[in-house]
């Protein structure tokens, strides 16, 4: 439904995204995950035809976004990151206007406007000026206009940002249900969110795709999110073997620091509390425990990790 091929976008000399390629199948919900300034918004703006890429192509529902721009844009509903709306219009007027822009007939406009107002539970605010709505309700109006013309493709840029936790849950449910009727691409920098909503995740960092996977697989790759670093004086092979036998430890990597002092990096099952066991093991063996620290991985680390793995030879 969406084919993104080798997208690159320069702003002057700055490369915002580089060689970004991925496909989205019909009916799929794909999450675009990345930290700030990763290039999510830039990619979405190119997909929706707001700005052209410097290099590469995008096809939406078979239409090239540059060459058959109008046809492609007709198939897209878009919620921009900043949810820009005309504040001097009421919700109903605004939806009617967006309907006219999409070339809907008066009857279709009326019917769909009623439907999306109900669907987004905006009934009480249908005749309120958008300027008077709270952020969360504006977000709903933003989604309402995106689904107004029943597009094949929905592009939602950070649909859950800036709304309260209760509404976040509701919005996620809503997006899931939208995924039954539309092909959805959404962006987020909230890791759990993608596993909740999305069937596939595209991880992007510093303008490059670092992973494309199902959320389950991704979380397996990320489950090493509990890491312990040890600095031990002792016979390194022996130490490594014994460490591996400690319950909860999955993997041990070592790196020489000095003489027979090594730094051991342990991948552990999360929440297994292995540190007690490690400390007593080392002391009982009469080795020298020089350092013990647990490394919790932030989202940044995860991206870093994915990036490093990628460079180590995962196929591109």
């Amino acid at each position: 439904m969406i084919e993104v091929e080798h997208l690159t976008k320069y702003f002057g000399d700055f490369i915002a995204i580089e060689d970004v390629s991925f496909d989205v199948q019909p009916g799929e919900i794909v999450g675009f995950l990345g930290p700030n300034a990763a290039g999510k918004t830039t990619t979405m703006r190119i997909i929706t035809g707001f700005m052209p890429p410097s290099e590469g192509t995008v096809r939406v529902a078979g239409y090239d976004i540059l060459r058959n721009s109008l046809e492609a844009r007709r198939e897209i509903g878009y919620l921009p990151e900043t949810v820009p709306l005309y504040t001097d219009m009421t919700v109903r007027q605004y939806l009617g206007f967006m309907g006219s822009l999409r070339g809907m007939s008066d009857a279709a406009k009326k019917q769909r406007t009623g439907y999306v107002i109900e669907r987004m539970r905006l009934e009480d605010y249908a005749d309120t000026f958008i300027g008077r709505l709270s952020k969360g309700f504006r977000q709903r109006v933003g989604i309402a206009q995106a689904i107004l013309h029943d597009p094949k493709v929905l592009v939602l840029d950070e649909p859950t940002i800036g709304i309260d936790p209760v509404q976040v849950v509701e919005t996620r449910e809503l997006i899931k249900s939208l995924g039954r009727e539309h092909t959805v691409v959404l962006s987020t920098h909230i890791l759990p969110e993608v596993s909740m909503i999305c069937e596939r995740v595209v991880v992007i960092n510093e303008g490059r795709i670092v992973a494309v996977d199902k959320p389950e697989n991704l979380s397996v790759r990320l489950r090493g999110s509990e890491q312990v670093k040890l600095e031990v004086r002792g016979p390194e092979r022996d130490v490594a073997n014994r460490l591996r036998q400690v319950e909860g430890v999955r993997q041990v990597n070592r790196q020489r620091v000095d003489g027979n002092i090594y730094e051991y990096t342990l991948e552990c099952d999360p929440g297994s509390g292995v540190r007690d066991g490690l400390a007593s093991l080392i002391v009982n063996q009469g080795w020298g425990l020089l350092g013990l620290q647990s490394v919790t991985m932030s989202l940044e680390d995860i991206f870093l990790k994915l990036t490093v793995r990628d460079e180590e030879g995962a196929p591109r």
Partner: protein
Amino acid sequence: MTIILAIARRELSTYFSSPIAYVIMSAFLVFTGLLFIDSLSGAFREASLRGFLAGETFGGLLGESINAAFVLLLLGPVLTMRLLAEESKLGTLELLLTAPVRDTEVVLGKFLSALVTMAILLVLTLYYPILLWAFASPDTGPILSGYLGLALLGAFFLSVGLFASSLSNSQIVSAVVGLVILLMFWFIDEAADFFSGLPEDILEFVSPRAHFTDFARGIIATETIIYLLALTAIFVFLTIRSLETRRWR
């Protein structure tokens, strides 16, 4: 066409639900009212719109520069400054340009809304000639041609203002840029004095000022009409191009 109308209708409702249209209309009526009264109450009273249209006011003190067209020139960029600058500042341009709408349709819709507002403005001033007709028998020819001139020049001013609005995110910057461009056009014939022969003729033709004086005197020249329409079309076209290049920035 429906899309152009939809955009124009939205802009018009914004104009008339905010103070801007009313402020501009009041300003226009006050200034042109002064010009109108002056030509009726001067030493040589006459039932005409010469003060309003040709600006031969205040005993010629202000020259022929201050006339209805000049007031329109000052107000035009204020009327149009919002049209594109505000959309790109608020980000609503992102939804407009990702809707299945041509850039041309966006620009024409906006231009149409400004034209309609200006037409309403001009219709409001019709009470000057109506007063004249009611109490005297003015020469109808110059009044009609004067209004034709005002409409043509007004369209040109708005096209320049719209173009200026496409250049920046700031309404103020847009208004100033529009004004500077228009004042250059308006006064460029002053530079004609430094030249002679063909360059002088060209400079005098380029400036809309002298053309308007002709209109006000009842002279309608086809080449002037074509010139003003072409100028308007050029600036509308430039606006479309400017909107397109926005995407590439």
